[in-house]
């Protein structure tokens, strides 16, 4: 057990080291920080002085070491564009993205599980076929198209819902929330649905596949033979077991949902991390890009590692295999 834990943590650390190295290389070599930061008509001496004061004349390993120490102490540099510390920018944008992701996850689970169960229980029914066909359309429709169509219908034509921004937010110290005001809640609807649709098909297909698998297993057949009520078999026995992998995947997907929120945030001008990142990309604001990469990378590695370790704790077979 200890061995698994150690190897998993080692792997996670290695990945983070690679991500931080990429981030460092971007920081250091993409564009010249001295040229970006010095005056336009700075003399050669001034530039050399700046180079020295930034530590850019040191050997590469030393620079990378410094970069790591700075990063670990939470200093991610200053945005070229906003001239503000990147950490501050990200902290400011984090609540918007996380709240959107939470809403989308809840929505996709609330819709995906019943639809998946429906498809598994009556695979040849009209409803199931319709849902299956629609899910293929769902996969083929890019998120931004869904978003634009929703805006066209509900914001432009009908004028029911706001189409951009978070509405009014309430500041709770370091966290700003849109859950506490009417306009904030209304603002969640369209972007929430848009982001949820990306997940929905996945969850639905997974629930369906798992349910079909579980329904053909021996203990379900035994339960049927015992004459237990169908409802009890389907929802108490089958669904519970089918949901285990669904929960895992949903957890694992939170990372990609945060990354994927970039698109939704662009469509709805949602002031989250994704919008910050996409603006940084178009302005070649390297510190923000590097910080976003590091942050999302860390999130991914954390989620993956925790899930792997939990799996090893829960399932002894995995322990034997990897040890």
């Amino acid at each position, binding site marked *: 057990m200890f061995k698994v834990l150690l190897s998993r943590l080692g792997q996670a650390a290695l990945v983070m080291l690679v991500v931080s190295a990429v981030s460092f290389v971007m920081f250091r070599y*993409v564009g010249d920080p001295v040229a970006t930061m010095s005056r336009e008509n700075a003399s050669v001496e001034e530039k050399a002085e700046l180079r020295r004061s930034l530590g850019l004349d040191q050997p590469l390993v030393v620079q990378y070491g410094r970069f790591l120490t700075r990063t670990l102490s939470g200093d991610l540099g200053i945005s070229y564009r906003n001239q503000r510390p990147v950490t501050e920018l990200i902290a400011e944008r984090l609540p918007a993205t996380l709240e959107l992701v939470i809403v989308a996850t809840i929505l996709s689970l609330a819709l995906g599980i019943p639809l998946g169960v429906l498809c598994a229980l009556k695979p040849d029914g009209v409803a199931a076929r319709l849902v299956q066909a629609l899910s293929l*359309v769902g996969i083929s429709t890019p998120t931004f*198209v869904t978003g*634009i*169509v929703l805006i*066209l219908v509900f914001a432009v034509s009908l004028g029911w819902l706001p189409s951009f921004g978070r509405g009014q937010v309430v500041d709770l110290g370091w966290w700003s929330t849109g859950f506490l005001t009417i306009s904030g809640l209304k603002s969640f609807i369209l972007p929430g649905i848009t982001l949820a649709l990306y997940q929905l098909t996945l969850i639905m297909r997974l629930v369906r596949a798992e349910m079909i698998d579980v329904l053909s297993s021996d203990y379900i057949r035994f339960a049927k033979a015992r004459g237990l009520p169908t409802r009890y078999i389907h929802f108490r026995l089958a669904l519970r077991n089918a949901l285990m992998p669904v929960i895992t995947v949903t957890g694992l997907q939170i990372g990609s949902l945060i990354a994927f929120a970039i*698109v939704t945030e662009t469509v709805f001008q949602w002031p989250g991390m994704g919008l910050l990142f996409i603006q940084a*990309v178009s302005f070649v604001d*390297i510190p923000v890009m590097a910080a976003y990469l590091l942050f999302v990378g860390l999130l991914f590695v954390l989620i993956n590692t925790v899930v792997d370790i939990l799996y090893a704790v829960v399932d002894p077979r995995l322990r034997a295999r990897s040890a």
Partner: protein
Amino acid sequence: MKTLAPTPGLFMRLGAPPSAIVAGALALILVACALLASWIAPYDPTDLSSFELINAELPPAFTADGDPNFLLGTDNQGRDLLSAMLYGARVSIAIGGGAVLLAATLGVSLGLLAGYFGGKVDALIMRIADVILSFPTILLALLVSGIARALIPGAATAEWAPVILICAIAIHEWVQYARTVRAATMVETAKDYVRAAKVIGLPPWRIMLRHILPNVMSPVLVISTINLAAAVLTEATLSFLGVGMPPTYPSLGTLIRIGNEFVFSGIWWIALFPALALVILVLAVNIVGDWLRDRFNPKLRVKR
């Protein structure tokens, strides 16, 4: 019914359901239209003299104020939308196809190496694959295009956009090829014909390319169909986000991005028609891909 049925065609013999046949035909027609854009498009959207600002934002011909000269209306610069879409679809398909080609070449080569040699080579390639796979496509693609934009001076970014996009998409897609080919190669490497080839002293590259490769190609073709749809979508997403094709040489995604700025003024067609074309194209390719996957997946075939 039997007497009415024509001689079974290729698709029929493969047991394709009607939906796959229709989708396949639709995909072929769309691809053909896109490839023949310079001949069938009513106007040339790349020719600056062919459009005038006076014609900007005209609604489609079938609406009340439509101009019969512009079937699907015009965009914000007075370009015929239908022509722009045909040219745009060509760009989208070319980039998607390029990305799939690059990803397949890279993935198949690395998969062959990993599967054939095993050991450290295998471990290294597969660790890289694991790391890449743990990040979502869109994030990696944005990173690659971000780095590329920073490295290439501003003026040249537009020219390099297709190349950047192809690399940005392929960096994620090769993994799937590598994994599939690696698994198939490991199976093949253990077989007698490969062992025989080794015994007679053929060089490894020859065994891999001439003997193993032909035997591991069929899943590669199946993956490619689905990946093509995914690649076209990723390209569209990147262009929509403004890090893909420039407005001077738009893909479908760029057109949707342009249209998105006019959605609030009630000018829906600039965004909606390219979006529709994109969805139909990707859906058609996906239906064919889904069917191919089911057909070549023995596990699923037994269940049916």
